[in-house]
């Protein structure tokens, strides 16, 4: 390592330490206190019990998923942009991960079970990596699942009498023990996304 490089590292460490002290003492001095934002999501609450049926006809619940890390993506087939793009990217990422991908179970959970019938999902999923499971349940089961992942969905009516779905956009990462391990944003650099998946797969 060159002297310059060491100097650079030392400088950055010093800056980081100074920033840490400043943030730490920020609340002590009157007028400098920052408003503490509440933590948006209680991460311990993510990954509660749920039960759905896969596009292959199997029952999939949290007990069955235990022991293997998994990915959860909420979407619907009447979605031309974010949903198929995410599924194509997951397909691509699974291929790039190689054998480590076998240790992951990506789940595509429909938030539109009324239109996404088992038949529609079975056909739809043939375009993607066969390890990705599409899951579907009744409206009540869908509600319970969305709640189990502290996610969100809502039916949004459109002008022509139809509707579209608003839904949580990110991919939720779950560890083998069922603990929440963060989220994936497909707009992050590809290497960062791949690194997160490798870490999750324990590769």
């Amino acid at each position, binding site marked *: 390592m060159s002297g310059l490089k060491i100097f650079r590292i030392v400088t950055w460490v010093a800056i980081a330490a100074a920033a840490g002290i400043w943030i730490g003492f920020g609340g002590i001095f009157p007028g400098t206190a920052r408003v503490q934002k509440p933590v948006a999501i209680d991460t311990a609450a993510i990954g509660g019990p749920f039960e759905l049926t896969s596009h292959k006809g199997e029952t999939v619940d949290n007990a069955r998923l235990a022991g293997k890390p998994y990915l959860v993506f909420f979407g619907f087939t009447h979605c031309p942009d974010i949903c198929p793009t995410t599924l194509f990217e997951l397909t691509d990422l699974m291929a790039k991960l190689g054998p480590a991908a076998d240790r992951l179970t990506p789940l595509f959970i429909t938030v539109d079970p009324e239109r996404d019938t088992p038949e529609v999902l079975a056909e739809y999923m043939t375009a993607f990596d066969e390890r990705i499971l599409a899951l579907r349940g009744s409206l009540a089961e869908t509600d319970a699942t969305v709640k189990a992942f502290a996610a969100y969905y809502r039916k949004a009516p459109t002008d022509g009498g139809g509707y579209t779905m608003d839904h949580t956009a990110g991919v939720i990462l779950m560890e083998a023990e069922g603990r929440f391990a963060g989220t994936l944003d497909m*707009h992050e650099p590809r290497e960062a996304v791949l690194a997160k998946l490798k870490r999750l797969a324990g590769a």
Partner: protein
Amino acid sequence: MPIRLAAAFSAFILLVGPASAHDFKIGQIEIKHPWSRPTPPSAPVAGGYMKLTNTGIEADRLVEVVSPIAERAEIHRSVVENGIASMRPTEGLAVDPGATVDFEAEKLHVMFIKPKSQLKDGEKFPATLVFEKAGRVEIEFMVQARAAKPAAKDHSSHSGSK
């Protein structure tokens, strides 16, 4: 000899230029590289993207998209706010003078509703764009697995839609 060479060279440019660029033009509106992703089988919708540039001095609007491959087409904007994805139709799309509306960067897409067949990588399909001032133009969407571009940046300063 140099003249002949120049002629050959310009012929070469004429041949190569438009074919590889996949662009269209109507009046003052340039339409760059309309493309669409392959769809999964039985997909009830497909998305289309392009770049529209207004080289004129008068504002124009894209008011309609029609294609024989779908029951109908709408222009939508995807919004991700607080981690929630939502999608809303836009009533026409303004293309201001000198502005470029980059569908991908602005999270816009043409939504082809009920495509008559699955869109496959490498295919092309026709569509008609209708602009308020420039009028109608026949274009072709290329179906391709990935966008031929680096990651889309947010050019919100160029935002031309209302």
